[in-house]
């Protein structure tokens, strides 16, 4: 069904918007123009209904109750795992660990893989555009193991050249951890090519998919990555939904992450044995309803087709860059819409991003302002903060126009 719709071409954005109840509300007395989807996406009725239905009809703890209702909850939870695995092209649902999303996933790998396999002098390769969630866990792992961090520099357009990756990899590289799509300047990284380089060097590769998975077709087999993180709340799913894809043989050789109930096989006074992946990494009562909501979200997206989503955002991004430039804004990152996604950072004249975001908010336009949890990238850009407009499948050309119109209000205050 997804394929049929994809072949039909452009999405019907107006029809899609009707699925998102919040998009019909007002903010500051004006129609809401939500341009902060890189921060969190809005949720369609289908996701909200799935969560409500789970609580109203199927709620019990998963993997615990012997009674029929308990089995329903377990089936819903494990069914969600199968659905999310299919969304990213993972043939085996056991490769998908549920958790709160990208931050927890990277911490999981940094602990359960990093503390086991990193040794003094080993190198972890990051890039200059990483979100703090893909920096800080590695700093901590490096501190504990004696490993070192190396950064792939960006080229002048804010893109990652394979030559730069090649010259950062050494014989001591054990892991490349990088974002698939920058949350600040939208840069795509050539994931498959870098995965191949990592494996040739005998290293693992982790892709921070917080943005990438939310806006692009993803096939983990084709990309051949070892780890990929999923932020459910950015994929139209509930907050605190998401997870980690991990290559099964890698997950099997890893330590557990959180210890606790349901991740064990047997517990003795002085030691324990653990379940197989993914349950080895799911201690305590899990985010069952959120995972069910996430499954509804990816089903919704698959029904539309991620290629259509990507094509729509590509057009909007190109349009937004054009219009912002035309209005006199400085737009950061690459101009090439084929090499970047729909997070557009900019400075409008000399107006500080916080002031701009405040003024725009009073016009009903929601943008993000700040360092976007990417201070190393801010230093590279040479600014303390940026204003950022970001899109999803429900974003429209009219909303970009509303952003541009609202800039005039800022000009009035600060001009």
């Amino acid at each position, binding site marked *: 069904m997804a394929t049929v719709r994809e072949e039909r071409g452009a999405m019907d954005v107006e029809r899609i918007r009707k699925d998102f109840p919040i998009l019909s509300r007002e903010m500051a007395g004006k129609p809401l123009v939500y341009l902060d989807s890189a921060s969190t996406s809005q949720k369609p009725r289908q996701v909200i209904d799935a969560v409500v239905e789970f609580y109203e009809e199927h709620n019990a703890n998963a993997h615990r109750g012997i009674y029929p209702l308990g089995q329903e909850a377990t089936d819903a939870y494990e069914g969600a795992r199968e659905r999310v695995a299919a969304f990213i092209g993972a043939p085996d649902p056991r490769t998908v660990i549920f958790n709160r999303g990208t931050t927890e996933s990277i911490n999981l790998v940094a602990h359960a893989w990093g503390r086991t396999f990193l040794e003094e002098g080993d190198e972890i390769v990051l890039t200059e555009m990483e979100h703090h969630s893909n920096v800080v866990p590695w700093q901590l792992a490096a501190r504990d193991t004696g490993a070192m961090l190396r950064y792939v520099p960006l080229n002048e357009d804010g893109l990652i050249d394979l030559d730069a990756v090649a010259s950062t990899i050494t014989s001591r590289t054990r892991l490349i951890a990088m974002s698939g799509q920058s949350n600040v300047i939208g840069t795509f990284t050539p994931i498959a090519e870098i995965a191949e380089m990592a494996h040739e060097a005998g290293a693992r590769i982790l892709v921070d998919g917080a943005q990438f998975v939310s806006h692009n077709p993803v096939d983990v087999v084709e990309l051949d990555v070892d780890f990929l993180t999923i932020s459910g709340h950015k994929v139209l799913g509930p907050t605190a939904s998401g997870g980690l894809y991990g290559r099964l043989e890698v997950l099997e050789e890893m330590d557990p992450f959180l210890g606790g109930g349901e991740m064990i096989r047997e517990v003795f006074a002085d030691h324990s044995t653990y379940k197989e992946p993914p349950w080895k990494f799911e201690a305590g009562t899990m985010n069952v309803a959120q995972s069910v909501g996430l499954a509804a979200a990816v089903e919704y997206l698959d029904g539309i087709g991620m290629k259509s989503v990507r094509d729509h955002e590509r057009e909007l991004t190109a349009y937004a860059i054009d219009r912002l430039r035309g209005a006199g804004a400085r737009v950061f990152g690459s101009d090439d819409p084929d090499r970047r996604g729909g997070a557009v950072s900019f400075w409008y004249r000399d107006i*500080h*991003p*916080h*002031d701009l975001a*405040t*003024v725009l908010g*009073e016009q009903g336009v929601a943008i993000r*302002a*700040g*360092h976007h949890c990417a*201070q190393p990238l*801010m230093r590279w850009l040479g600014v*303390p*903060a940026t204003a950022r407009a970001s899109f999803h499948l429900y974003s429209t050309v009219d909303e970009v126009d509303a952003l541009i119109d609202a800039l005039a*209000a800022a000009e009035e*205050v*600060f001009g």
Partner: protein
Amino acid sequence: MSLDDLYKEVILDHYKNPRNKRPLDGATVSLHRTNPLCGDEITIHAVVDDGRVKAVAFEGQGCSISQASASMLTDSVEGKSVDDARGLAGEFRSMMEGKVDPDEDAFGDLVALKGVAKYPVRIKCAVLGWDVFQDALAESGTDGA
């Protein structure tokens, strides 16, 4: 709540023409701090002597609210005793929390920042300079001395 209540003329004037924005020769204390949430930066330089803030200046970068507030701070605390400066800082915080209506005579230009209280996410911008200033006083070891 209109933008005019937030971005009053006097705030924009302090932002565009900041007072005492410079290094300070002979400063007895200089303290720099960034707001981790937004990256705004303020350095407060002060000459604290004989229990009195004899001179104060600032440097920094950031939004209009953080920079204007720091500029107003330097105007309002210079020449005050350390105790009075501390008292003013406390009253300023109370105003930002919406707890007190300021005494307009004592507050001077600072009154203009009252509207910020209606924008909770921006309050941290307005108090950044005051945080640095109060820590600078503590660091200069002038507890009532």
